[in-house]
């Protein structure tokens, strides 16, 4: 791993960090922060789905676990918000490991794996909606207590920068994976699991590591959401919306790439806002559009925006030659 690998990431993060200095409208900052939170969740998905080829349709399971973990720790046990954040991430990783152990050791792949992840997310949602500790259907409110030590900030820009820092960290993590033996093995499993096994790769162990990492990163997004909005309920934390967006963003941006999820999340949310502008505040318009975009992406740009860019560049290079 060279310093050059991380230069691109540092540049991108630095550029984005300038945004709150230029844009001061709170609505825009909120919008961008949410996009970054989704990007972070998507980066988690990307590790398992993009690099590992195991498509999870229930990443809400990790998002919600992170969100509820930090919320419950703060509201019911008085734990410090930053500690709650760290613990939430750990819980997400654990959830990943548990779901992975159950699914991968039973040999579930492809559609079956997607189905079981969907079921796990739904089970958690039903439980969270009914249980007392999670506030049941009413949800959980984190007490407003604006102090940096409490992970709550007065300025929207501060949240933006925290989210950006986490996204930047996830970008670096993804790049590190991409250039490592773990990453090479993960990708080999995606391409052909049997051939990978024949080359000495313990595919279950590798997939478990991937899902644990994936769960941890997506849980971080959940924790961030909880801190930013200070309210979660079962449909927000474990709802299909985040399972969908965490999957859609990498597919649109380019699954299995470092920048894909970030690009995809920004594109998707931009598209969603544009849709709302044209069609008014009709609920569901943005997601309906996302569904169509997913179909179109698979049909015309299966390797996402980055793949499209790569192919166009190659075509232009050939045309010049």
């Amino acid at each position, binding site marked *: 791993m060279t310093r050059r690998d991380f230069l691109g990431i540092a540049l991108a993060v630095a550029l984005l960090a300038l945004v709150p200095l230029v844009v001061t409208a709170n609505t825009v900052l909120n919008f961008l922060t949410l996009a970054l939170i989704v990007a972070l969740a998507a980066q988690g998905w990307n590790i398992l789905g993009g690099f590992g080829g195991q498509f999870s349709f229930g990443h809400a399971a990790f998002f919600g676990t992170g969100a509820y973990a930090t919320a419950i720790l703060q509201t019911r046990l008085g734990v410090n918000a930053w500690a709650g954040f760290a613990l939430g991430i750990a819980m997400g990783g654990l959830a990943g490991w548990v779901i992975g152990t*159950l699914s991968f050791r039973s040999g579930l792949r492809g559609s079956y794996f997607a189905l079981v992840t969907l079921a796990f997310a739904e089970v958690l949602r039903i439980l969270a909606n009914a249980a007392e500790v999670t506030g049941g259907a009413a949800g959980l409110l984190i007490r407003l207590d604006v102090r940096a030590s409490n992970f709550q900030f007065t300025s929207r820009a501060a949240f933006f920068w925290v989210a950006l820092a986490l996204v930047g960290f996830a970008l670096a993590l993804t790049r590190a994976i991409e250039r490592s033996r773990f990453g090479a093995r993960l990708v080999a499993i995606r391409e052909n699991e049997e051939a990978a096994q024949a080359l000495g790769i313990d595919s279950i162990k590798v997939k478990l590591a991937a899902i644990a990492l994936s769960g941890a990163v997506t849980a971080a997004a959940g924790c961030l959401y909880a801190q930013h909005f200070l309210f979660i309920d079962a449909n927000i934390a474990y709802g299909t919306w985040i399972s969908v967006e965490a999957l859609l963003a990498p597919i649109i941006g380019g699954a299995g790439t470092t920048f894909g999820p970030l690009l995809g999340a920004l594109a998707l949310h931009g598209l969603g806002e544009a849709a709302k502008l044209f069609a008014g505040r*009709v609920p569901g318009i943005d997601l309906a559009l996302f569904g*169509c975009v997913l179909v179109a992406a*698979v*049909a015309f740009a*299966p390797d996402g925006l980055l793949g499209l860019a790569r192919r166009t560049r190659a075509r232009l290079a050939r045309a010049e030659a």
Partner: protein
Amino acid sequence: MYSPAIVAEAVVNGLLTGSVYALVALGLTLVYGVLHIINFAHGALLSCAMFAVWAAHAGLGVDPYLAILPLTPLFFGLGYGLQRFVIGPASHGSDSNILLVTLGLSIAIENALLAAFRSDTRTLSTDYGFQSVEIGPLLVSKPRLIGFAAALAATLVLWLGLSRTDTGKAIRAVAKEKLGARLVGIDVEHVYAVTFGLGCACLAVAAGLLMPTFYVNPRVGNAFVLVAFTIVVLGGMGSIPGALVGALFVGVVESLSGLYFGDSLGQLGIFLIFILVLLARPTGLFGAKA
């Protein structure tokens, strides 16, 4: 704890619900058995069908059972078109792509319904909606009894169609051996589309049978389809008798868990069974190899 009469009633109710679940599950298992894809859009399509029945009643005063007549061919056509012109071409044959395309369709349809009808739950009322029939010591809802009979009849029709007609044979041929079927001149793309169409047609019938006693909102199909997934996985991917038996079983389990554990956790029992079956035997109790 509960008197035998109450438990018996729960069981009977479970069977009645199960029969309609069977119709929903049939579409899913048929599509899997022939196209070897898990149609994630099945739930959204059911919501669509149920809204269609509701709209026909609210707008034109059409009785839900009668609405089945025009809606079945309509949804057959919709399903045919979706497979032939959207799912088939978009996926370029790759399994993971098909997964994503049906997911995309599911999101698009569900949210389009949300945009059009908002999230309010709607019901329709008919004269016979609350009528009941006495069977021995039990009081059974009349429309649900009709639903039971009609669902079984529809299953039988589908089963006969698949075993006796030429199209049915073509469908079974493609399910068994796609390349061989193509080599003997069967238009596989057409068969795929017909199968998908049949799956959607089943949904139209199920919607008409459900609406007199049920409600509809854009998310309702999801609840049904996750149950349908459980049934298909339990009864076997691609097995029609499996879907029927599984559906009746799941209907009874759901009814009894609702009785003993309360409504909010009733669905939980089903998902847990779902996860357990997936982990233990993904091909189900009757199904072919995955």
